[in-house]
């Protein structure tokens, strides 16, 4: 009897030893589109260098990610590595003790303060996620359509609307592929795409946070006024057109211009059979300084309660390396590396987007830092207001006033 127990004990220690030899890390993410890239390219490259660590990429649907992740973290069932949304969503996780402080990682030196700012405490004393990529807003256009109609790539707003008029008059193509059913495109690819040119990027954004500008100022109402003009150029029934509808309309060659985020590039490259180009949000007059939304979008952090903290840090050091940056930026053209080391990208459309970093001033989405902390939530309200303005059910001035009133109701500097 004792012998049996002894054997059992021995066997269990051996099994435990075997289990220790390989650590499995699970990554929580909302990027379910990237599953293949992680499984086929990124994870094998890491595992080849670290045979003792196994990595599993376990994404969930984007719209459910935040809610699902918060519940899992509270219940203690979340994965070891957490893909971080920028700013407050992740800051709240850090404050709640769910994310580990990563300031000590050697790889953090590879990122500029701006890149790190989206995943830091307000006083920048702790950084809790390793920055991965930013996305740039602009417009992707159907090059074949532009050539056929003899339209030059618009630089100014007047040229932009002239081009839209010309496409509409011709009638072959829907001038612009966007719908208001899902609301967020109106805010993200509409308001925050064209807005920085009006509020002068960081200058306006920081002034808004400091309380020196208001959402009812002319520079903040003007993007809504321009959005209201978009209505006439959208397809029939755009009110019920969803985000995938818009993507399909464009990639099937039925629409000429697509208000875009650079994350669309890889999907569009596989879907579209025509040549594509991209242009930055048009400015008021030729030669004006242009501003783009170069939004710090995605990073990766460590679950503070993970049993595999050491292995997790090994993985994150690798994520912060130039090697990962090159691999990620090329596997996912349109997700631009935040690493200070310049990354060579092969994709022409991605090159076009990233070239604006040299010509224009970069900013991030106006609603993301600090301003969406209270109730009503400024980002969600901006979705609703932008969609209303495009549908014509609310005027630009009314929408701006509603947003300002909502913000002022809880944000001290705006009171």
């Amino acid at each position: 009897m004792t012998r049996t127990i002894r054997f059992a004990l021995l066997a269990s220690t051996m099994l435990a030893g075997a289990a220790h030899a390989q650590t499995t890390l699970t990554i929580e993410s909302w990027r379910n589109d990237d599953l293949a890239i992680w499984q086929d390219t990124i994870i094998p490259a890491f595992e080849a260098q670290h045979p003792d660590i196994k990595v599993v990429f376990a994404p969930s649907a984007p719209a459910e990610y935040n809610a699902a992740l918060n519940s899992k973290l509270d219940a203690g069932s979340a994965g070891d590595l957490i893909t971080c949304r920028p700013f407050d969503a992740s800051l709240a996780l850090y404050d709640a003790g769910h994310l580990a402080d990563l300031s000590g990682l050697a790889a953090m030196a590879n990122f500029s303060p701006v890149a790190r700012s989206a995943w830091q405490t307000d006083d920048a004393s702790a950084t809790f996620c390793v920055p991965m990529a930013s996305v740039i807003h602009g417009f992707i256009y159907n090059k074949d359509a532009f050539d056929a109609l003899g339209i030059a790539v618009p630089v100014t707003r007047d040229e932009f609307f002239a081009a839209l008029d010309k496409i509409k008059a011709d009638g072959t193509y829907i001038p612009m592929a966007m719908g208001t059913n899902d609301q967020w495109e109106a805010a993200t690819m509409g308001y925050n795409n064209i807005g920085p040119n009006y509020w002068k990027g960081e200058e306006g954004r920081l002034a808004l946070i400091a309380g020196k500008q208001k959402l009812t100022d002319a520079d903040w109402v003007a993007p809504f006024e321009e959005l209201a003009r978009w209505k006439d150029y959208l397809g029939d029934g755009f009110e019920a057109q969803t985000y995938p509808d818009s993507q399909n309309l464009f990639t099937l060659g039925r629409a000429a211009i697509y208000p875009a985020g650079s994350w669309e590039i890889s999907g569009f490259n596989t879907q579209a059979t025509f040549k594509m180009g991209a242009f930055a949000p048009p400015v008021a007059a030729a030669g004006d300084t242009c501003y783009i939304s170069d939004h710090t979008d995605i990073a990766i952090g460590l679950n503070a309660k993970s049993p595999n903290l050491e292995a997790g840090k090994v993985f994150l050091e690798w994520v912060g390396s130039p090697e990962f940056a090159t691999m990620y930026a090329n596997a996912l053209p349109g997700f631009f590396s935040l690493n200070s080391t310049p990354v060579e990208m092969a994709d022409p459309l991605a090159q076009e987007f990233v070239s604006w970093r040299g010509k224009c001033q970069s900013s991030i989405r106006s609603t993301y830092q600090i301003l969406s902390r209270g109730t009503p939530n400024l980002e969600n309200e901006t979705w609703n207001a932008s969609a209303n303005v495009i549908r014509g059910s609310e005027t630009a001035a009314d929408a701006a006033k509603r947003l300002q009133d909502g913000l002022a109701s809880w944000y001290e500097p705006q009171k």
Partner: protein
Amino acid sequence: MGMRRPVRWHIAVFLAPAVLVYTAIMIVPLFGTLNLALWNKGEGGPVFVGLANFATLFGDPRWSVAFWNALGNNCWFFVVHMLVQNPIGILLAALLSNPRLRMAAFYRTAIFIPTVLSFVIVGFVWKLILSPIWGIAPGLLDAVGLKVLFAPWLGQEWSALTTLALISVWQFVGIPMMLIYAALLSIPDEVLEASEMDGITGWSQFRKIKLPLILPSIGIISILTFVGNFNAFDLIYVSQGALAGPNYATDILGTFLYRTFFGFQLQLGDPHMGATIATAMFGIILVGVCIYLFGIQTRLRRYQF
């Protein structure tokens, strides 16, 4: 006298499994939610705030406007079901119980099938059918020369909620149909024959004999519809998203609760205000059910054969 009744242990033993399971998965969470609504975030942990959350929900215009909008939409959702789903259900049941109808079993099955489909499938399929870009609805209307009637129904404030309510009616019309059908079948032939002897046939037989006999079933269906509608969430979430667009025109209590409790996009979840909304929903449903139980059901006449 000296004969004490033995303790009847078996009653407790037989009740125990159901009571324990029901307590664990229904009663404890319910009181947990009610309790959560009385607390709020404070410095270093939750603090007891009494009814302050309810004061915020009903008193602060930023919350109350959203709440009354959701409640109003919910009421309209319920009204559409009562006016469309249940009368159609009764009509279908009356047709099905007609002994001269051929292929009754086929119709019954066909009409009932959508009920067993997932909300996700129903929402997705209808969204495709009604899509102004790929949908078959504009094409079908065009084929009969009525293209002008087509509108992007799910995207317009005046029509989105009614459209969704009608989709839900399409899905669930089988339930009142089945319940009424069963009630109609249980009416004894003697009663119907007696009425025929008195010259009451056809429509007036339905109105004067059958309808009073199925009223209790209609009552049950109404209360099921009420509870189902005020707990609804899935269909709206699947087809319009958690922000229940356009401009919150399809926001019902369920989506409002979801956004508040779990958070949405940059909005962080607030379990305390979420629980407050859940408690308000519980109260609304409780009041509705009580009105039915004490105001209507006790007055319904029942007939024994």
